[in-house]
């Protein structure tokens, strides 16, 4: 099957200043995005944060009120959806219920004037690629959720679009199948070479799959970066809270990257300077926190003394919730190993972290 091996060159996508209002409510506010050809970008955020609206404007289902959408250097802001040549995988697949799997996949080819015979041949090829050749003649209702998902994928890439949009494509599947499909989607996308914009509200999915992630909140992108950027260098407390597990301590900035809170002092790299006396937050990842008996406490900076309030067993790790003496709480995840010391509820402990493992944010 020669056409299965042709690698599409991904398209470059640019959004600039894209804004969409529904009545008075601003759904998306001045979004700027730049995608490299072949890049896998995930839009991550809570529901109603504007990620699906953005996707719909890229696909052409919605018109932005202002701003432009550019695909491979040509502006498509007002181009109707059917003339955009963008593949879309819908949330509940939107497979045509009256057509068999293979006819669903052949549909976009027939729309492009490919003869029925040739369209079916290529559709069978695409189904082979998603390992569904044997179900080609079944109707969508006769396929399982995972199989429908694969047909939807095949249908979206069979016409070799430069850009693939996926709107929570795995939302309807159970956890185990979702993990398998994540890998499969990544494999397929790499194989066809398209640029991908992927929408999800599942942060693990975003971290696993993406080259870059755009964190949406209330219609704006809070931060755009790689998984590592977002996890280790969150730009806002929203990002820190949304991506991964974190402890966020609120205190008062000393103006030099030091924050003082109730019974603790923290110092670390600052994201944007916070004037002295303003409120500031410290973000600490629980796996970076070390616990020791309270009497061993040495330093006073990046340290909190308190009592173990809860112990949560997580399998390979144990999570301690430490209630600090000043009233703040800090979480610590400790890996179980041959020589780890275990604490019990009520033990007096000292929680410490190093300066490079915490981030100071203004808030």
């Amino acid at each position, binding site marked *: 099957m020669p056409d299965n091996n042709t690698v599409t060159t991904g398209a470059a996508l640019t959004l600039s200043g894209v804004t969409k209002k529904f009545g008075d409510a601003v759904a998306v506010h001045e979004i700027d995005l730049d995608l490299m050809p072949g890049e896998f970008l995930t839009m991550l955020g809570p529901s109603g944060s504007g990620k699906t609206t953005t996707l719909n404007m890229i696909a*052409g*289902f*919605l*018109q932005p009120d202002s701003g432009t959408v550019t695909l491979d250097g*040509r*502006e*498509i802001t*007002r*181009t*109707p*959806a059917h*003339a*955009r*040549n963008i593949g879309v995988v819908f949330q509940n697949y939107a497979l045509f219920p009256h057509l068999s799997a293979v006819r669903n996949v052949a549909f976009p080819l027939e729309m492009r004037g490919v003869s029925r015979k040739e369209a079916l041949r290529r559709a069978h090829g695409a189904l082979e690629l998603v390992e569904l050749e044997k179900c080609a003649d079944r109707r969508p209702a006769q396929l399982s959720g995972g199989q429908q998902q694969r047909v939807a994928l095949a249908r979206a890439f069979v016409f070799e679009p430069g850009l693939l949009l996926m709107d929570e494509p795995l939302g309807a599947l159970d956890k185990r199948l979702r993990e398998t499909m994540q890998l499969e989607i990544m494999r397929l996308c790499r194989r066809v070479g398209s640029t991908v914009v992927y929408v999800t509200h599942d942060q693990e999915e975003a971290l696993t799959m993406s080259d870059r992630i755009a964190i949406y909140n209330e219609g704006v992108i809070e931060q755009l970066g790689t998984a590592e950027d977002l996890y280790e260098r969150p730009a806002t407390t929203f990002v820190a809270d949304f991506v991964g597990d974190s402890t966020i301590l609120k205190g008062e900035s000393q103006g030099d990257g030091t924050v003082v809170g109730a019974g603790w002092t923290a110092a670390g790299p600052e994201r944007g300077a916070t004037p002295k006396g303003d409120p500031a937050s410290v973000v600490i990842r629980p796996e970076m926190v070390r616990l020791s008996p309270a009497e061993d406490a040495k330093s006073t900076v990046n340290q909190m003394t308190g009592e173990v309030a809860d112990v949560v067993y997580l399998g390979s790790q144990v999570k301690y919730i430490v209630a600090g003496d000043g009233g703040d709480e800090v979480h610590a995840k400790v890996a179980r190993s041959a020589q780890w010391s275990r604490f019990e509820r009520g033990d007096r402990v000292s929680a410490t972290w190093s300066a490079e493992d915490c981030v100071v944010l203004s808030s």
Partner: protein
Amino acid sequence: MTVGTVPAPRRRGLLGLGGGGWALVLPLVLFLAVFFLYPLVQMARESAAGGFAAYESILTSPVYRKVFGNTLTIAAATTAICLVLAYPYAYVMNRVSPRMRLALMAFVLLPFWASLLVRSFAWIALLQDSGLVNQALQALGLTDDPVSLIRTTPGVLIGMVHIMLPYMVLPLYTAMARVDDRLLLAASSLGANPRRRFVRVFLPLTLPGLAAGCLLVFTISLGFYITPALLGAPSQAMVGEVIAEQVEQFGLSTASALGIVLLTGTLVILVVIALLAKRLGRSAR
């Protein structure tokens, strides 16, 4: 793929595209106005052609009072019998295997689709003095002389219940299918015995379907004509029969007035019961 000024894509889908909705509905509205509403209005005018004499005679005559009494009694009895037969039937339909359910559903739907006249004369053949029912009764030794079933009120009730039963079974079945089985398990786990579980949980949850079924059966029964004319006693006539008779023998005036009374009565009952059900539903919530 050319880029240029193209009209904005539609938001509400191709067929849901705004505008044009009224134009599509208009033919139907006009048609019903001319061939449905206008005839009813015309009938109201006809009934009042000689002042309100027609209404006066209807309201004061003991003959018509008896007719309306009969109509209400027969409709109420039909509703009650239908409910008694349909409730267990719908309940069993919900508890059996899918294959069996399909069969039970087909038993309900087949008569529903079969001609009303065919069913009515089948009943004549079955219920007549020399018919199968009387033969069976005599063979069983329950009676020596044939029991008159045709041209009696029980005869009408048998025929009408047979015709109206599907209208009761279907809403009840739907209402019961909607009851979440876990609620019944919950009731059991909370200590309800089967009888209380039924009375306190299942019955209240199926009440909307029950109300809908009764309303449907009762109001449709009020207007019956064919079945009582074929199976009923002439002395126990229902309004529908009298209206048809009036048209044949005396012209439109009294028939129209009777029709308006029947129509108004039906609508009032519909509205009152619908409002009651709404209030009941709200207070239940």
